[in-house]
């Protein structure tokens, strides 16, 4: 993924807040590199310093120590407009722009490229249109940004950041207020933009699953500020992902790359059957706290046969009782009743 020199890098970077009386270091000793076209997910629990790190990278906030380099040159030596031409952001700040069309908002991204008067050339308008087209927001262009849905507004904000024609785009929780399908769409869009435009994209998110499935590289901030960098699969393999989020009631399933509610075992379940229905039947039993056996070995507290052809959807036997049913919710209810009858 590294093609040549990193476009953005940090050297022994410490980030945090400086007030008149005291300095609060949030993260220390960060050595990070971002290459062109790289799609990076920044993961970590709330309050660990993701926003602070992104703000420091984008020169909105100053580092407490160390340097950030954009295109090999320290941010502190670059003029604000030069930084803005290389790096753009999408923030969590609530938009409060009065009445402005989406096109005008995207057009604002041309700010660092225009002169004192802010007059837009034909080229600026072309870039604005390209940015709108790239995020698939053509039909939103003439609409007032206040009237857009959260997902639509976020796409417009990505277009605005794109109109700055940066080499790096930093996004602070771009999917935070979006519904599931919008999240997947937006993440997919960002990944596409990174690939097509050789644009480095760093986005922070709480959406572990989507991040692990889409990112080239994961920056994982563990509680306490420890940083792990690597490919998503490597971090799963090394157990860093599990350790960063795992709690008393949360267990990471490395195979499915998602977290599972940890609960007291309700017993062993044996499920016979193939296909999607059987798989979902196993999921329903797992939800009820059963350990589902892979093969028909050993004793089971509940044994289920799932068949997709004819008759009942499932037949189950537990503690001497037999049942059959047509929905998996019924199966779950039967299993639940079984675990209450015969705890452990």
């Amino acid at each position, binding site marked *: 993924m590294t093609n040549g020199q990193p476009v953005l890098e940090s050297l022994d970077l410490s980030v945090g807040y400086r007030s008149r009386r005291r300095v609060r270091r949030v993260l220390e000793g960060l050595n990070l590199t971002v290459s062109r076209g790289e799609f990076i997910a920044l993961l970590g629990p709330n309050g660990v310093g993701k926003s602070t790190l992104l703000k420091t990278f984008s020169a909105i906030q100053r580092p407490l120590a160390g340097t950030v380099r954009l295109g090999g040159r320290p941010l502190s030596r670059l003029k604000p407009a030069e930084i803005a031409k290389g790096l753009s952001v999408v923030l969590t700040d609530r938009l409060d*722009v009065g009445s402005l069309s989406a096109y005008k908002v995207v057009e*604002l991204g041309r700010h660092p490229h225009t002169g004192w008067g802010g007059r837009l050339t034909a080229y600026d308008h072309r870039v604005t249109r390209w940015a*709108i087209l790239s995020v698939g927001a053509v039909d939103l262009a003439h609409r007032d940004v206040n009237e857009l849905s959260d997902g639509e507004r976020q796409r417009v904000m990505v277009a605005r950041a794109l109109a700055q024609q940066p080499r790096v785009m930093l996004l602070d929780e771009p999917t935070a207020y979006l519904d599931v399908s919008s999240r997947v769409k937006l993440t997919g869009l960002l990944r596409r933009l990174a690939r097509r435009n050789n644009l480095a994209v760093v986005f922070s998110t709480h959406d572990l699953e989507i991040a692990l499935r889409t990112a080239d590289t994961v920056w994982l901030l563990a509680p306490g500020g420890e940083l792990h960098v690597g490919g998503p699969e490597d971090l799963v393999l090394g157990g860093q992902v599990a350790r960063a989020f795992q709690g008393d009631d949360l267990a990471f399933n490395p195979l499915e790359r998602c977290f599972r509610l940890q609960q007291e075992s309700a017993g062993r379940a044996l499920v016979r059957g193939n296909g999607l229905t059987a798989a979902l039947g196993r999921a329903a039993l797992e939800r009820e706290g059963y350990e589902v056996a892979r093969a028909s070995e050993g004793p089971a507290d509940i044994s289920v046969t799932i068949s997709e052809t004819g008759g009942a959807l499932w037949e189950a036997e537990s503690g001497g009782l037999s049942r059959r049913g047509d929905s998996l919710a019924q199966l779950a209810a039967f299993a639940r009743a079984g675990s209450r009858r015969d705890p452990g």
Partner: protein
Amino acid sequence: MPLARVRGWQWAVFGGLLAALGVMFFLGIALGSVVIPLDQVFAALTGGQTDKASWEVIIESVRAPRSITAVLAGAALGLAGLQMQTLFRNPLADPFILGITAGAGLGVAVVVLLAGAGGPTFTAGLGNLGNVGIVAAAFAGAAATLALVLLLSARIRNYVTILIIGLMFSYAVGSLVTVMIAAADARQIELFVAWGFGSFRGVTWQEMRIFAPVVGAGIVLGALLAKQLNALLLGEAYARSMGLNVKRMRLLTMLGASALGGVVTAYCGPVAFLGVATPHLARALLGSSDHRLLIPAVILLGGVVALFAELVAQLPGQTAALPLNAVTSLIGAPVVIAVLMRSRRGAFAS
């Protein structure tokens, strides 16, 4: 994509504003306490002879400077109000929110209420608000306030804090004025109250030589800052990320807006309301927050509204006049409320 920068109907709005300004300006010249026939007004305007010499004098030395003052003051207050509203992201902001009026008022109070005891040399001609002493005092008061606020705000990042400091300053200064009023005699208080009415009639051609260039400079500065104000629409963090030097921009905007507000207060008294109202009307008319559209609009609209208020205040054909501030607020408040209620979501989102 329908992406024209200025849409057809927005051009029409500008055309309408220009026409309204022309009509209002002409009415400002044509109407007044003395009735002058329209053909005579045209004659005077085109440099011809009027039937009565006094008509030419009235038009040249009373109505023309008065109308020009109204246009400039309206434009200045509209622009300064717009700048403050965007800068502080507050729809209630006006040019005087930083305590400029209070400072000017203090200056005037010092001159009128304290120095007024100095005797007839000062009080002579105080009925004329163009009085040099009052203008100088108001100027000094406004400038001192501005310097103080800018100095403080250079050390403060939080906008709300700056607003609160301005407010506190206004209260403190206001109480000083109250103390002075308590100690003053009736004649002095009357003068001070009269200053508080506001008027476009005090600026002579002589004074126009300072008033007009200051307003002009403020407008030029405002136009140059249009791009920056637009960037600020997305909030300070975004503005910073787009390369805006927020601190410098804030300082320049506050300087420009306060100079505009200060010079109007010095020459016309604390003309209320126009600074708050004009930006709201302009946003509602144009349906946009783009400052490249709003700035020319508030300049034109401010002039129109100020001329209209002055026309109503002077009660054509009458010798008496209403206080300007009473007119601007009485007529303007219902208009602004009506406009805001009718526009879908209010002219300012907040």
